[in-house]
């Protein structure tokens, strides 16, 4: 999309040999995350404990999912601006469906399962349209997905007619905010439900259910990108789409798949949103789109496609999440977050340019 970059880099030995540069290029992101984490651990009271780590991961799930969605698209050299509003759309659709199924007499667990599943299927639609526009009509991804952003926004607001989508059964909130097990003083262990204890007694909550679900999904997609034929093909498309065509890769179908997948992950994030916040609204994911893209970029993917891994994208997402939580817990005004994320983003891409990894 941006062609202003085709010139070769000034290959000045900025930092010694190529090997050294490649070494740093591959690892500074992780070093940065470690340093950042260490900094907040020492500086911010209450940062270095299990609870904070769980908060970090729990409230990061939407960003993690959208970042993976965005990564797949960015590896092909595209971009998906619609994921934030697809998330909102899915949060609304899932609640509407679950409430409808509940009213139709389905028991709550079944309604949740079925409603969630149908939403994920419906959630493919925006992506399929995006993919069709991009792959078959040649519409630039930026425009196609921006249009889809508008359409999803409009349809969402029409669906709820300007009011929150609400009315999920209690079970949804229990799953959405539940943990795998709870430890209460006196050796009481309780799985999935918080033990009844006297008010004021500290209960240790361990591993939010949703974090586990997200981790599994992210893991599966990491596998798909790295080890499946589909993953290999989308790297090839991003690396050299002509070559991919000539090697007999069904490029258009793959692109369709990538956008559908992106939209699927966004819908999943939307369903998760609905369970976490027991409400749905159009702009539920609007403000995290840029965090998601930034995470992918900080993780070392190239805007031009062909590079990026799920693991490093997660590191990128964690860098942002740690920064946000750390600043919040130290009581530093939020505004600094935007400035810092902006700066890290640019820094990351400069690093990627000067110290590219030798491997993908």
């Amino acid at each position, binding site marked *: 999309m941006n062609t202003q970059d085709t010139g070769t880099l000034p290959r000045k030995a900025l930092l010694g040999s190529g090997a050294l540069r490649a070494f740093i290029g591959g690892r500074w992101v992780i070093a940065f995350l470690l340093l950042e984490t260490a900094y907040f651990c020492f500086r911010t009271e209450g940062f270095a404990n299990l609870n904070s780590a769980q908060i970090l991961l729990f409230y990061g799930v939407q960003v993690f999912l959208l970042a993976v969605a965005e990564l797949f698209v960015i590896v092909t050299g595209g971009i998906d601006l619609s994921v934030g509003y697809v998330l909102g759309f899915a949060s609304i659709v899932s609640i509407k469906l679950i409430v409808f199924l509940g009213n139709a007499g389905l028991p709550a667990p079944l309604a949740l399962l079925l409603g969630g599943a149908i939403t994920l299927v419906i959630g493919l639609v925006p992506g399929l349209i995006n993919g069709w526009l991009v792959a078959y009509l040649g519409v630039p991804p930026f425009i196609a997905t921006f249009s889809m952003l508008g359409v999803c926004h409009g349809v969402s607001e029409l669906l709820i007619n300007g009011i929150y989508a609400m009315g999920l059964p209690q079970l949804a909130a229990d799953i959405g905010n539940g943990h795998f097990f709870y430890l209460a003083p006196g050796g009481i262990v309780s799985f999935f439900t918080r033990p009844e204890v006297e008010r004021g007694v500290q209960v240790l909550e361990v591993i939010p259910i949703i974090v586990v679900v997200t981790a599994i999904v992210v893991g599966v997609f990491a596998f798909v990108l790295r*080890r499946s034929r589909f993953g290999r093909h989308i790297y090839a498309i*991003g690396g050299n789409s002509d070559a991919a065509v*000539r*090697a007999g890769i069904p490029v258009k179908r793959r692109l369709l798949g990538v956008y559908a997948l992106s939209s699927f992950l966004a819908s999943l994030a939307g369903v998760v949103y609905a369970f976490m916040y027991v409400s749905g609204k159009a702009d539920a994911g609007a403000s995290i789109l840029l965090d998601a893209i930034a995470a992918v970029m900080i993780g070392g993917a190239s805007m031009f496609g062909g590079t990026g891994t799920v693991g490093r994208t997660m590191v990128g997402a964690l860098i942002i999440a740690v920064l946000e939580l750390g600043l919040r817990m130290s009581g530093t005004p939020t505004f600094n977050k935007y400035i810092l994320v902006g700066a890290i983003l640019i820094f990351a891409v400069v690093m990627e340019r000067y110290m590219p990894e030798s491997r993908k």
Partner: protein
Amino acid sequence: MEYVLETRDIVKRFGGLTAVDRVSIGVEAGEVLALLGDNGAGKSTLIKLISGVYRPDEGEILMGGKTVRIESPIDALAAGIETIYQDLALAENLDVGANIFLGRERMKRSLGVLKVLDDPSMALEAQKVLDRLDIHIPSLKSTIKTLSGGQRQAVAISRSIYWDAKVLIMDEPTAALGIAEQRKVLNLVRTLKDQGIAIIIISHQMYDVFEVADRLAVMRRGVKVGERVVKDTSPDEVVGLIVGSETVGKH
């Protein structure tokens, strides 16, 4: 001897323009056919017709004497026609093995159920074919980005060979290479020829043509204007055919 690949009166039009006009060429096993012509003579279009990027409007393509339908790059590959374009069509972000197997990845079963990419075996096969062609690349793990022009060309050729090409089409294989690397590539072409592959080379470099080709065909404005056996012709005559000058054109 019978042609491995043959086109008969093949035609391709773009709007009002006829880019390839009733062209018939053929190439035998273990033979190198050079395809010559000025810019815009229709060489590339002809190549793209054979390799399935374009579909012909008229005429037919034959493999081993039988008509084949080539409607997409996949059809061409299936028929045993491999094409190495000038830009090599390599995914620079992937490693050697991945490129050789691009679009035809090897899979294995992991845990008995999941089908996953079998990178180790692809790397192994890549090493084998590189050895067969006597090509040395420092590390198969490195991405194409880090290789030199000649090494890339070698990877592209290895890819074609690996898939048991009957016909190999090379578009300007030596352009943009240093002298030493040009030699290597030409040697490679000879090796391939000895292994019985039919090769079509497009080139502007007269030296290359006379070095490796057995026959040559010249195109001008979409039409085949001449065909010569290399050892019976001279560079001057060929240039004459290419530019269409009258004096040397009569033969």
